């Protein structure tokens, strides 16, 4: 008893419920229809796949801004390799994923070797990768947008709408949630990530291979961003150079709404998922209400604050709550 109420994620859950209720009232039946669910689930899926590794990094005390250019870079890679050069789609997928991992590896290596804050390092790679993508696309494909037609298998696995509404990425997201959840809660690596974010010197002293772990986390975030990029290219049959900069902020927002500490050391996968869904609902729900879209940003801002306030209040209440009333001091 009480163990559910005691979980700190209860805060994120209540934040989610509040915004969901808000849009159910103002968005009406359309918002509650299958199409309405698909509307924010599709957005949540793409964002969520990026938010998971970004959240892990944040728990470990790092940030990754480079996702904002890895996503378009990976889109362009698969489109150029398999669209422009007509190579088999598997080659394109592999190339895109390798690119993402390579960027992550460089981020991790530079962070670990130079001790420059990851914010700055990944900012530099954000610019560098965006520049490379543009420059190479113009040289190789002579264009900043390239069309891509995936084969039926690739489409079915990565770029399909199930029931005409739900992106397959939703299922990939669920898979990613399970894997990352397992990693964080049930493997030693989870322990290491928390420890590193809590106190990286003590973590190193405790024998944790902090350098290897940091690099792996950046590689993971590069990989996931690349996955989102290539699945977008397959889904929308084309790729553009223009940077998906909104992903940078949005992934951080989702993770922070999910209760992960910006300063590291604390967070949960359930929280990240709830945060992602909250953000997606706030973002997309607005279009189901009759409000003038000019006010969209205002409503997003206010709801974000409300969600986070709910979240904080209830998390604190949950942490305060103790299963049996402990009388007798010193306890």
């Amino acid at each position, binding site marked *: 008893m009480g163990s559910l109420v005691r979980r700190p994620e209860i805060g994120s859950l209540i934040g989610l419920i509040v915004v969901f209720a808000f849009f159910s009232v103002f968005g009406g039946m359309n918002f509650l229809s299958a199409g309405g669910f698909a509307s924010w689930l599709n957005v949540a899926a793409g964002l969520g796949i990026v938010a998971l590794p970004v959240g892990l990094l944040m728990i470990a005390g790092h940030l990754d801004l480079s996702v904002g250019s890895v996503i378009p870079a990976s889109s362009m890679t698969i489109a150029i390799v398999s669209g422009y050069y007509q190579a088999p789609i598997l080659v394109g997928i592999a190339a895109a994923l390798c690119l993402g991992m390579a960027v992550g590896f460089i981020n991790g290596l530079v962070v670990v070797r130079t001790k420059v804050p990851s914010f700055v390092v990944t900012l530099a790679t954000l610019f560098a990768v965006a520049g490379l993508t543009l420059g190479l696309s113009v040289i190789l494909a002579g264009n900043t947008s390239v069309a891509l037609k995936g084969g039926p298998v690739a489409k079915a696995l990565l770029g399909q709408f199930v029931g005409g509404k739900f992106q397959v990425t939703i299922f990939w997201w669920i898979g990613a949630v399970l894997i990352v959840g*397992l990693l964080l809660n049930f*493997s030693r690596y989870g322990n290491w990530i928390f420890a590193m974010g809590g106190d990286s010197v003590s973590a190193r002293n*405790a024998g944790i291979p902090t350098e290897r772990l940091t690099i792996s986390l950046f590689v993971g975030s590069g990989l996931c961003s690349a996955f989102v990029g290539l699945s977008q290219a397959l889904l929308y049959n084309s790729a553009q150079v223009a940077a998906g900069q909104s992903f940078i902020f949005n992934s951080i927002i989702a993770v922070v709404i999910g209760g992960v500490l910006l300063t590291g050391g604390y967070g949960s996968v359930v929280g990240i998922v709830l945060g992602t869904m909250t953000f997606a609902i706030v973002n997309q729900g607005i279009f189901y209400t009759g409000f003038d879209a000019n006010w969209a940003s205002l409503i997003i801002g206010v709801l974000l604050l409300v969600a986070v306030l709910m979240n904080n209040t209830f998390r604190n209440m949950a942490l305060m709550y103790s299963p049996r009333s402990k009388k007798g001091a010193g306890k």
Partner: protein
Amino acid sequence: MKTPLLKLTGINKSFGPIDVLHDISLDVHAGEVLCLLGDNGAGKSTLIKILSGVHKPSSGLMELDNKPVSFEGPSEASEQGIATVHQFGGTFPLMSIGRSFFVGAEPTRRWGPFTIYDRARANGIAVKEMRELGITRIDDGDRLVGGLSGGERQALAIARAVHFGAKLLILDEPTAALGVKEAAHVLRIVLQARQKGIAVVFITHNVIHALTVGDHFAVLIRGAKAADFRKGEKSREEITDLMAGGEQMAELEAEIESYMVTGEGHPEPAKHAH
């Protein structure tokens, strides 16, 4: 005499232009407690950071079981059975007691095809080992470390090191934040470890604690080894003066006693105020 478990010869350490350790030679024997004493800033923590692989010595030789070693990082030292409680930190405020206890050496169990972290076992062991140190109020390994009192946290770090200290246990001022009962438990644990044949390096500013557990004493003054003697070879007064950096404490103590006299009567004036 048996060969030492760990032997340091001519260890030097400097941070940039600042020389912190000078030509330190030291033997640590299995089944013995080496008390490392010295004033604030004498270099004790720096020396044990070298033993535990946190720093590399600028020069000098370190031998473990008669074989030269050089640790690339703390994980290599702990693989060799060296466990350390550093002076600060070592616990993670936002982690549970069980997780914090096993950080870097998590117990796992099979779960279908997966090897997963064994939370129940980790919590159980952590709570049991804390109890060994006299911390009986903690019964839930899922509690966050951040909610513990200073002494409770210190006890957790010590319990962890005792659990993992296979060959050599290094404790940097372990009793500093502890109450009398908990400190006594730590001393007991140290002596138990010694009995099991583990080598212990024990740093303290408390002469009584040092005299209670130490078999062998090494005193650092300004980064150099000023004295190295066995139990019984020096008086408590001599040791106190060495711990104070070689200065005569008598004058300061006399001054303190002169202040004390202004108080209205007091029992058995303590000889040494430390």
